[in-house]
């Protein structure tokens, strides 16, 4: 089991989601984050207060997958998230020792296989 963590551009999220669904990757969690890479800053002014904004809005994806899905998932993200400009983001692959599905208590592989009942 691996946890794939990807920081991507917010405007690419929909494309990435679509691309992941096509690749049959179903379970994932996203969060709104801010990132700093190697680039320049944006300047903003509020009355006399001038500030440099070094952080850009990004979206973080966390996707727990079984070994066999790692490459597919990475390729799906790469294909959809790339704009070619600095700031496209990074993908990290972290080892996972155990996964539990809360609803059933199923563990590992079984826990990341999706079911077809409605999510709420």
């Amino acid at each position, binding site marked *: 089991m691996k946890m794939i963590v990807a920081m991507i551009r917010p405007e690419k999220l929909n494309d990435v989601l679509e691309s992941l669904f096509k690749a049959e990757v179903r379970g994932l969690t996203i969060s709104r984050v801010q990132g700093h890479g190697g680039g320049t800053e944006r300047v903003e*002014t509020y009355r006399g207060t001038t*500030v440099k904004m*070094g952080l850009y809005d990004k979206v973080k994806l966390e996707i727990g997958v079984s070994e066999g899905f790692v490459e597919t998932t990475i390729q799906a993200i790469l294909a959809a998230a790339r704009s070619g400009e600095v700031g496209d983001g990074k993908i990290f692959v972290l080892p996972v020792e155990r996964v539990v599905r809360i609803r059933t208590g199923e563990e590992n592989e079984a826990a990341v296989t999706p079911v077809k009942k409605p999510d709420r």
Partner: protein
Amino acid sequence: MRLLAMTIFIALGAAQAASQADGGTTAWMLVSTALVLLMTPALAFFYGGLVRQKNVLNTMMMSFAALGVVTLVWALFGYSLAYGGGSRWIGDLSMLFMHGIDLSGKMPALLDVAFQGTFAVITAALISGSLVGRMRFLPWLLFIAIWTVCDYAVLAHWVWGPAGSALLKDLGAIDFAGGTVVHINAAIAGVVAVMVLGPRKDFGRLAFLPHNIPFVLLGAGLLWFGWFGFNGGSAYGANASAALAFTNTFLAPAATMTVWMILEALRGGRATAVGAATAAVVGLVGITPAAGFVGPLGALWLGALVAFPSYFFISIRPRLKLDDSLDVFGAHGLGGMSGALLTGVFAAKAWGGTAGALEGNIGLLWVQIEAVLAAVIFSALMSWLILRLLALLMPLRAADDEQAVGMDALCHGEEAYPVAEGAILVLDRENDGGAR
């Protein structure tokens, strides 16, 4: 210097005429003017809530800045062109720089500059709804300044100019509070501008959702409140006509909102908040030309009927090529047109209007159609002309990557809801040199 000289001159020349002012009239017109002014910040919230978070300040500023720029050109140039005698086509320059306007009259004359000025401001602000998310700010300001003088003042003259030298009024067209001048005019300008500027990046591909619907409801609530001044004040007195216009402004949107919620429930299954807010505005637009001319039941019918064209058009609009982003055409254009035509139907002699189609006078309906067509054609041509000329001078549209960053950062160097963490204070003011 010349202006300064003029200041003094006019100041000295003004006649004090305090004693003529009628208390009731003046009180109501003061209030009405304040109410109409409030409509522009209200619109800023109505529109601002409907856009994405990265564009909210720019959207609000497109309205808010009109309070600065349009007010100035209106007071200095527009008022004279609209209300000066001149010809049937346009007023004259006799009141340029408010020359010769004093405080005489039952309603002090100068107050009319302000009352009518608030109409000019909101009209310009209305256009912005078509253009949010892509039009640069400087060309926007120049556009509304020129448009107010060359388009709005002209159409205002046609409809409200002095009897005998007002094109559409003399034709017999009736427009109580500005359905043609304000709503149809703004909507057509918006549509033309969309054609010139093109749709937003990703239009039709991504979903553009409102970022703050409570703001939309706040805007709608304040717009309704302000509209009592818009319609009620157009009676130019605290009289029976004002009471009628006011009551109709209360009844018609109620009918529109109820019909709209039923339509939504029948079709989509749920009455939405954005829908209810939109319906209220559509009803207000619809009753605007009719307010002082139809009876209260006529107002209810008119309100109920104007819901239909706007509702169906707005439902399909996202599927059209036309990125009229906040449905200025659907709400103000169609609402204004159906209102103008239904005024021709429901106008009732006994309630202060000309007899309308229901009272057997089909002629009025024809005149109303002519007036709508005249406004549409003039507004389309003039708006197109101004925008094409401006486009020669500067780019009107933000580039795609600028739109991706958002208009707030691009045009104003601000975010709507800044988070200071991660922001580094710069005490030595530097030139940011960024694009805008």
